[in-house]
């Protein structure tokens, strides 16, 4: 199937390019680390307070780093007009979206996994009690951020004020993902049963599916000239 082939080719290409230049990963990691450090100056929580607010701090850091990473990732395609080369491929342009989404989710999640211990150390959190659940929350939440983020990085690349438009569009629309991811993370950190979070998981999965499908369908309009 053409779409799958093009998306897979794009994903593999991104992996190769990232292994070589590490552009996207370094920007996410460095920025995330800087934000974590900034938070330690802003907040000095007790152990119990830390468990309450860590979810929020974590996802804020992930969100801000994601914004940086997403624009870097898309900048790869605007250099040398490569996006036009992609548009000449014999497939629906939505395939481009799917390919970029897959590589964005991968790079973001990998960076988040590296940032987690940093937060754990700074705020004295025990993050590894239920690693499976933690990873699932990371995956679903990041997928939600990236689904709209990949779309809006393409949208803002067409405007005069790219750096402003991506966060301006992304922040309000990803509020549900943030709320859900923060709630899930907080429930996990406070040691409560994960069944408490079942509503939030449903919200995350629903959001991810709805917006991935919508963005896939609408992407051709965004790259049309």
């Amino acid at each position, binding site marked *: 199937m*053409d779409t799958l*082939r*093009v998306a*897979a*080719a794009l994903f*593999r*290409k991104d992996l*190769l*390019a990232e292994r*070589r*230049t590490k552009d996207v990963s370094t920007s996410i990691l460095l920025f995330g680390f800087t934000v974590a450090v900034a938070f330690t100056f802003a907040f000095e929580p007790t152990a119990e307070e830390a468990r309450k607010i860590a979810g929020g701090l974590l996802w804020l850091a992930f969100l801000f780093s994601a914004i940086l990473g997403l624009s870097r990732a898309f900048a*790869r395609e605007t*250099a*040398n*007009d*490569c996006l*036009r*080369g*992609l*548009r*000449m*491929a*014999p*497939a*629906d342009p939505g395939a481009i979206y799917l390919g970029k989404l897959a590589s964005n989710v991968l790079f973001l999640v990998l960076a988040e996994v590296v940032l987690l211990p940093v937060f754990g150390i700074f705020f004295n959190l025990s993050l590894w009690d239920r690693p499976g659940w933690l990873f699932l929350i990371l995956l679903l939440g990041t997928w939600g951020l990236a689904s709209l983020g990949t779309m809006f990085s393409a949208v803002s690349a067409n405007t005069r004020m790219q750096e402003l438009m991506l966060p301006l569009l992304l922040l309000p629309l990803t509020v549900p993902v943030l709320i859900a991811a923060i709630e899930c993370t907080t429930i996990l950190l406070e040691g409560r049963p994960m069944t408490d979070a079942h509503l939030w998981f449903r919200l995350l999965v629903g959001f991810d599916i709805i917006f991935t499908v919508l963005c896939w369908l609408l992407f051709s309009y965004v790259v*049309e*000239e």
Partner: protein
Amino acid sequence: MPAATSPSPPPPRVPGPRPDGRGSPRIALRRLSKYYERFIALDRVELTIEPGEFVVVLGRNGAGKTTLLRTLALLLSPSEGELLFDAVPAPALDPAFRRRLGFIGHETFLYDELTAAENLSFYAALYGLDRPAQRIAEVLAEMGLEDRASSLARNLSRGLKQRLSLARAWLHQPDVLLLDEPATGLDTPTRSRMHRWLAGCHRTGRTVVVSSHDLAESLQPATRVLLLEKGKLVFDAPNAPERLAEMRELLEAAAR
């Protein structure tokens, strides 16, 4: 460019939609216009390109050559009017049709951080070529890039980048080659080698459309010459000396 003046006979083509059994599609533009707010890039262009023609599009900078070529490559959609391939309007074309088009623009469409071979590998995957490694080796040889296959694209000189770009456009053996000012920035020997290669390509029955702002450039292989001025098609004639004289007069008149 290879030492030979023409490419070896093309290997069997990639299967693609060929409704009328002939190689290249007939391309028609009907009152096609492209606006950018107050600026008219193309102004009611009427044009039919028959399969197998070699068309040179001349015009000053800003005359609309790039817009025309990008529109033919299905990268731009017209503001008004129609573009038809074998009488099928462009919006109704299957995405698979793009397999029959090859385009070189001002930018290379290449990833700086990948090698020449990796770039071609990527495009081979985009076009779903079978036996990609073999095809890539063929194309690298045809363009004289075999010993630069492992060089990063960003480390190639302008001339080599153009050859790689041409390799990229030729990789899937399109029926229609669209080249936007391909000779810019190339030295004279490379330029003539490219022209000879294009002539050879044309001899296989493909449609070739090349643009240039250099009005003195050699028009030899071309069967047809077009002149764009401020988005309008002001001259359209077969490539014959008396018609060219007509065109030069037109240009001088416009310059006054």
